[in-house]
């Protein structure tokens, strides 16, 4: 039999807590983008958190328990994709380090790690996606989230795809790669410092004159959207997946439906 159907990799979508609880549209956008890139997508129901809040608070034992259940739920897939550089970084970079010295789990975590990708880097680096079929008629500015940028090297990939969105103009802000002050548990532990950092960030965002702020991590987006809103700004915030999937009609983050 001459089967011409190309191989469709099975992707397990790691939804992430914030997408699940605050912004499910990012999950649906991710499913569309991964399917458009020639893959099948499944969302294992056994998934929970990546374990980062526990890990960053020093609770190694609970983190290990969470990591084991994540690995068990996802290791049968060809790829594991998350619409977040922060959670993907946890799965890819910190899981193997977490199990150092535990031969069996370190081996499993390392094999699992090789399959994990942040959504946009998966599309561009793994699937070779060069453009998307979407329209977004707005000037946007793009914020590089820390973990995605520094742990996973995500910088050019989202910009590459955003430039192919019809009607979209990308206007870079100064200090696009500087932290927004969120930092996961950091903003809870040190709200004063977090606030001082995000105040600088929103100045940079406003300077561009862009109408929409785009980023790849919902934590950072909610932090910046919250600050912008309290400052009475008109700038709206959206996740990069929503823009690339053409979900222009979804209300912005923190906006009215």
């Amino acid at each position, binding site marked *: 039999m001459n089967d011409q159907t190309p191989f469709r990799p099975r992707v397990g979508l790691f939804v992430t807590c914030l997408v699940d609880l605050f912004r499910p549209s990012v999950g649906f956008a991710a499913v569309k983008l991964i399917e458009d890139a020639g893959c099948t997508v499944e969302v294992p129901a056994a998934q929970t958190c990546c374990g980062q809040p526990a890990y960053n608070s020093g609770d190694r034992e609970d983190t290990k328990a969470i990591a084991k259940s994540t690995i068990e739920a996802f290791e049968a897939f060809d790829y594991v994709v998350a619409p977040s550089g922060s959670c993907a970084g946890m799965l890819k970079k910190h899981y193997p380090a977490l199990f150092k010295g535990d031969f069996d789990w370190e081996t499993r975590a390392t094999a699992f790690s090789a399959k994990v990708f942040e959504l946009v880097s998966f599309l561009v680096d793994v699937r070779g996606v060069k453009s998307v079929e979407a329209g977004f008629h707005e000037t946007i500015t793009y914020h590089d989230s820390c973990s995605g940028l520094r742990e996973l090297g995500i910088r050019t990939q989202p910009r590459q795809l955003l430039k192919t969105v019809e009607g979209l103009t990308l206007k870079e802000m100064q200090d696009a790669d500087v932290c927004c002050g969120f930092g996961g548990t950091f903003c809870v532990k*040190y709200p*004063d*410092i977090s606030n*001082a950092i995000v105040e600088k960030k929103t100045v940079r965002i406003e300077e561009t004159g862009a109408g929409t702020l785009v980023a790849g991590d919902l934590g950072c987006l909610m932090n910046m959207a919250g600050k912008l809103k309290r400052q009475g700004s008109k700038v709206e915030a959206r996740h990069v997946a929503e823009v690339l999937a053409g979900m222009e009609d979804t209300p912005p983050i923190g906006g009215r439906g």
Partner: protein
Amino acid sequence: MQITSPSFKQNAREALADPQLQKALNNVRTGFIDKRQKAVDALPEFDALRDKAREIKDHTLAHLDLYLDAYENRVKEAGGTVHWAESAEEARAIILDICRSSGARTVTKGKSMISEEIGLNEFLEKEGVKPIETDLGEYII
């Protein structure tokens, strides 16, 4: 060394409300970040050089026994003496001996992180030898 981490939150709040400090920190961005970027842009091989430097450091650390011996030989050839210490305590004692042997009451020292780590200044002061830092940065920061 005074430990300030228990009052970090309060200290941070005060630092954020300190206009002079905030102004100085804002200067850091033009003084360090922008100027660094300018220097990086003028050196296309920057990342390759940085990788090379890391490789050299990693290699040296992995073969430290060899390099420390080689270093000692070179110092001896140049007429110097190398003192070996296994602990902070031992290192402090060796330094104090050298000071005592020349009857020193005052000693000038250049900036060194290892002397910070072994708590040399406090130790010398306690032993009646007054250390004077010659590194200008100590006085600025």
